[in-house]
């Protein structure tokens, strides 16, 4: 028999402390407090655990991705690193597509599943790019749809630039 976790995966941002078993009236069984702190967990400690877990789940980035553009060869960017709530590494990374010089589109799957197989749609609501290198750049993020973003990589003169390396954080939910 497979257990189905309560609520939805973390990137839905719908979990609160009660999803993890918290309750404002949580109490030690039969009002017996901790007898041995090496073996017992109190209701107060448990409450802290679930509250902090909910806090972290709300604000942790959905994904952190670093890629390097290959505009001079008109190829799609190469993926340098990917950390995602649904998985880590190249296999979990979004599709990287070169649109034009300094313009990259990233598209995630419409849904991802958590380790228990519970599926949740991707709903990107924000994020921000960071340029690498020694030259000042002003990259910006454009939200295309719930699972697609574009990164515009421009210089101080508002002109697109080639072959830059970017780190992008993306967040979901909260809308």
């Amino acid at each position: 028999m497979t257990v189905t976790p309560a609520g939805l995966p973390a990137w839905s941002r719908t979990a609160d402390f009660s999803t993890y078993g918290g309750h404002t009236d949580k109490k030690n069984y039969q009002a017996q407090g901790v007898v041995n702190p090496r073996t017992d967990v109190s209701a107060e400690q448990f409450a802290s655990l679930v509250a902090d877990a909910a806090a972290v789940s709300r604000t942790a980035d959905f994904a952190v991705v670093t890629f390097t553009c290959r505009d001079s060869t008109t190829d799609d960017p190469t993926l340098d690193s990917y950390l995602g709530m649904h998985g880590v590494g190249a296999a979990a990374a979004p599709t990287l597509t070169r649109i034009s010089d300094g313009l990259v589109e990233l598209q995630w799957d419409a849904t991802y599943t958590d380790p228990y197989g519970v599926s949740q749609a991707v709903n990107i609501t924000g994020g921000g790019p960071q340029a690498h290198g020694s030259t000042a750049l002003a990259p910006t993020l454009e939200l295309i749809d719930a699972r697609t973003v574009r990164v515009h990589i421009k210089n101080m003169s508002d002109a697109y630039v080639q072959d830059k390396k970017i780190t992008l954080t993306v967040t979901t939910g909260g809308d």
Partner: protein
Amino acid sequence: MPVLGGFCPMPLRLDAGGTSGWSPEQHARLSADLCAAVATVPLLELRYTKSGATITVNAFKDQLRVGKWTSVSRVVNGTGDVTWQFATRLEDEFGRIEPILCEQAKASCEGSGAAVATVEVAQNTVRVRTFAISGGVATAADKAVNLKVWSAAGSVIDSVTSMAAKGVRPEGPPAIARRPSISNYGGATDKVPAASELVETYAYQHFVELATGRGSLYTQELATQVGAENVAIARCFAALSRAAERLEANALPLTAHEALGGWIARLNVTAEPGDDTNAIRDACAARYRLALGPTRQNEDESIATLLGPALVQVWRQEGTDLATPPPITYWPTINPGPASHDLTGAGAWLSEREHLVVEVEQPPIMELTDFLRLLNVRLFDHLDSMLPSTATFDWCLGPLSAGFLLDISALDFTGIIP
């Protein structure tokens, strides 16, 4: 079973939830969401102000400590240009040591003037350059900066535990390793409430018996010497009750914990550091079923136990009946095959009845590396132990449709004719 307080000593046992309980569903969500958050939270966040050669660390936090940690190594390269050097390894509160490799970073400038920052990440250094913007021109300038750094996912072979570490050894690596697994938090896809302590814990059951047995001459109040004595004795008896249950659980590999290492050795299951504990239990349980005999049902059920959602179907080519074997059946001197199929000079031996094919598909929740390891290591190990030495086996990706089926359709054997 209630899980909190003095009547619920560790280990916690899941129950139906409620004001004193914790259900498997709630625990599963916590395990899964912790894995998600561990994957993306930054390794560290640093806020600093640069003014000439002076760097002031305004705030610092990494996954192990918080505070104005001034001993972070840095080099001033010039105006608005600082290189930060971070530790190459971190040791957590439990003595777990993980190598750190900074891989991604973001920096943003504070203040009212237009400004940008760039980063360069190399090994464990992050170089931050800040620029003031005016009239479309960026000029290097000292700024107050917020810097976030993410580390790469580490390799399991690089994890060590300090020799000085004492006390409990947490399961799995620390969060900074970015190798989270629900099993590290006690998670498993088949978690259920603990039936034996579902309504009342052993400790409370014994407590009630003790308090009742002592009679009305003794106070029934918990917050008394008698109450404390009753609770202490009840917990002792509860430990005995749990020990008996633990013995029963460890007698089977699927529910073993302390004895899992023994099952791995006795059943000759492949297990390496970093392997998921639940996957090892499944592998042991699958191998254990072979003791029931290599019947078709046991073979199928043991493969299903091992592969879980990755299994699509087990294929066998039987032919019409016993006297009419499948087409590709060659038997030296009885039904000799083409000379080209004779590998040893003693005649060709091929039997589709002796060839088992396992059709699989990668579950959405399983990483490709884990999927391939499941098939090429665990499944191979299992089939090698299960099947007689005269049998061959293979796996193929499904789901399959009509038409030529690699390793299943007869054409595959025919195709080996040079």
